[in-house]
């Protein structure tokens, strides 16, 4: 009898041990797909881009900005389509009017655009196009296109910190967002901006300025400050010899003379 009990306990322990090893691992997530704009930081960040026809050949009628997006939750098993929608932010006061679909940009509902706004199967990132139109109104004003990821058949918006974007559209010079009051070349003026572009052959838009300021490149800054100061001095001497005023933002206002900070 005791022998049977010992044998029974031994067999039971063996069976229980083996059964314990068969416990199933957690399954992969297969639920809702989410989508957000690519961001390095876990903070609120509005994806920002610029489109300036000013720097493009006059024959160009459209410009395309590509936005980087990434999926959250799953890697799509099939081609998955994205939906963007433009909106007006009632809580933000902006100097720029909102762009109008069909006028300054191709509507997000355009069938051809919709076909391109997708994440391919097996991919977790994509670049989706926003097509801007060269409308004459861009010569007068800078327009802003605010948009956000909205629910499509395949995606829901992901982290709300990373689902909004803005594109500034223009066909004229405008103050880049990172030309701040402490900018190393001093205060902004469109004549000054144009002068810098002509003298350096550089666009002096936000992207180019970033190469000088983030990280700070004091050597390049010294070079450009010297170059512009010298060129302005030479130009003003030539203008003076020709009976003209110095270079000004407003030719009638001496107080608007173009200047650069001291070397």
């Amino acid at each position, binding site marked *: 009898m*005791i*022998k049977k009990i010992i044998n029974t306990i031994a067999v039971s322990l063996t069976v229980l041990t083996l059964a314990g090893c068969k416990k199933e691992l957690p399954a992969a997530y297969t639920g809702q797909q989410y989508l957000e704009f690519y961001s390095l930081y876990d903070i609120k960040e509005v994806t920002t881009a610029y489109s300036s026809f000013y720097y493009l050949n006059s024959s160009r009628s459209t410009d395309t900005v590509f936005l980087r997006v990434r999926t959250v939750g799953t890697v799509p098993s099939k081609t998955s389509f994205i939906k963007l929608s433009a909106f007006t932010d009632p809580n933000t006061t902006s100097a720029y009017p909102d762009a109008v679909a069909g006028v300054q940009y191709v509507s997000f509902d355009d069938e051809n655009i919709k076909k391109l706004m997708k994440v391919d199967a097996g991919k977790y990132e994509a670049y989706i196009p926003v097509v801007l139109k060269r409308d004459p109104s861009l010569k007068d004003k800078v327009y802003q296109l605010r948009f956000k990821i909205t629910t499509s058949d395949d995606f829901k918006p992901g982290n709300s910190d990373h689902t909004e974007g803005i594109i500034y559209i223009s066909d004229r010079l405008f103050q880049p967002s990172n030309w701040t009051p402490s900018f190393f070349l001093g205060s902004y003026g469109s004549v000054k901006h144009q002068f810098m572009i002509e003298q350096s052959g550089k666009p002096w838009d936000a992207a180019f300025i970033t190469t000088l300021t983030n990280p700070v*490149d*004091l*050597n*390049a800054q*010294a*070079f450009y400050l*010297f*170059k512009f*100061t*010298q060129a302005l*001095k*030479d130009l003003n001497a030539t203008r003076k010899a020709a009976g003209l005023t110095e270079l000004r933002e407003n030719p009638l206002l001496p107080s608007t003379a173009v200047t650069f900070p*001291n*070397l």
Partner: protein
Amino acid sequence: MLSLKYKLSIVIAALVIFCAMYGCKKNNNDITPLPDITISATTVSEKFIGDVLSINPTVAYGGQEANFTYKWFKTVQASSSLTVYKQISDKKALSYTLDSLGTLNLKFEVSNTVTGVSSFSKISFNVVSRAERGWYLLKATADGNTEMDAFYTNAVGNQSVTNIITAKNGAPMAGLPVDIGFTAFYTWYNPITKFFVSNNTCLIPVSSKEVLAYRVRDERILSSTDGLFYEPPVPASRNFQALVCDPNLMGIVNDGAAQGMDPNSSSFLPQRSGDYSLSPYFTLAPYKFNNANVGYILGFDKKSASFVTLRYKQTDISYFPDRFLTGSKFSYPYNVSSNKMGAQLVFMGNTDGTLDSLQSSNGRAYGLLKKDNSSDMMLVGLNTELLLPSRYGNGNFSPIAFKRDLLSSSYPDLASASLFAINKNNPIIYFAKGSNLGYYNIDTQVYSSSMYNFGGEEITYVKFIDAQYDAITANNFRNLVVATYLNGKYKVYRFTVLGTTLTQTGAVFEGTGRIKSLIYAVPNGNSTATFTSLFHSMYRYY
């Protein structure tokens, strides 16, 4: 109850386990201890960077034969807070070129290939610069290019190194030598870390076609011509003619046009505007490191035959107005314009004392000019205080406070000399013609064309170096330094000067090539209390 057979099985099992345990214990008692791996103690005293470290430690294994693997490691800084060992050799005998300054921590690890048992030994020592104090000679090679030799002065005695440029850069600098300068503030863009590194003490050797930034302490070329200009001049058009180094402004002359480099910068800015062509002679106003009187360089425009200033934070050059400061220390104001001199500058240098009765501090220089269409010369005294904004408003007066004609009939060897220097303590001009060295005392107007003769050796360089800037007093000196050339070889002589008597001092530096320029470099000091170091006293070189 359990059956007898079952009980027997349990007993047998217990016996087996007991025997096994007993057996193991017995075996343990039979193990013979392995011998220790012993590594002979190795000590290394201070070494110079660039030296090849050779160490071959003795490894013993209790008198037994064994096979080992060997690894040498050095500590490296993986991050600001993490130091790790990096392997530098797998040989027992280490041969390693010391490539960085500071404390070098080495670890030697020996492993028995059979047992896997290892032992290690550690060694630490300092790697120091051998190059921070000494003489750097810029010379022309036989084929017309530029090289640099050095004669170091350091704790283990004098050492010399020849043809440094070729050793570091693979080839001499193209073109004939121009000059060699010095800065303590060169900013280097490290292409590996992609960060700028400030305050590099560098020599700046210049040839007619190339410029280098050579970091002295670790004997490394940080940047060459393309990296030293924001807008590098195309090689075919390069014609570097002069270099001048002020703590706030390094200036280079390329085909007559000036380009400046700010301190804490890595490149020369674009050419300065104007219709001018600078001569290669410059001087600086005396300054102290911690005041604002730096960044004002006196030069000469060949095109207009006028004295000019190169100022820092300026995009062109400046001329002096024809305004004259009253109150000259002389009996009457000379009222000499510094413009359209009708002569070309052949030498300029400063010395102690002043030409300014309103200021008592040092601030005088002298310029020698060769008159146009004449063999006569003109000597002018220049009040360098007038360069300074804090004195007389940014060069608002003519700097010429004194003028004297030197007729070639009266001073034939001075008027036809090829090289000039000025005593930094007294207004005495030295001049060289062929193998002869002469002098002209400006105050007493005493003249001699045969102060010293070098016996057939052609004088190629002469300068009075007043090196009272070295923190180690023993290395301070006031020497007239003369380089000569004969049959493809140079000699550099140093003399103490007492009146008009030259007494040779120290060893003669000898080598191949023809000396164009030289500099006595010392470690850079940052003591604003004592104003020592070459950089703080750079005006003494001009």
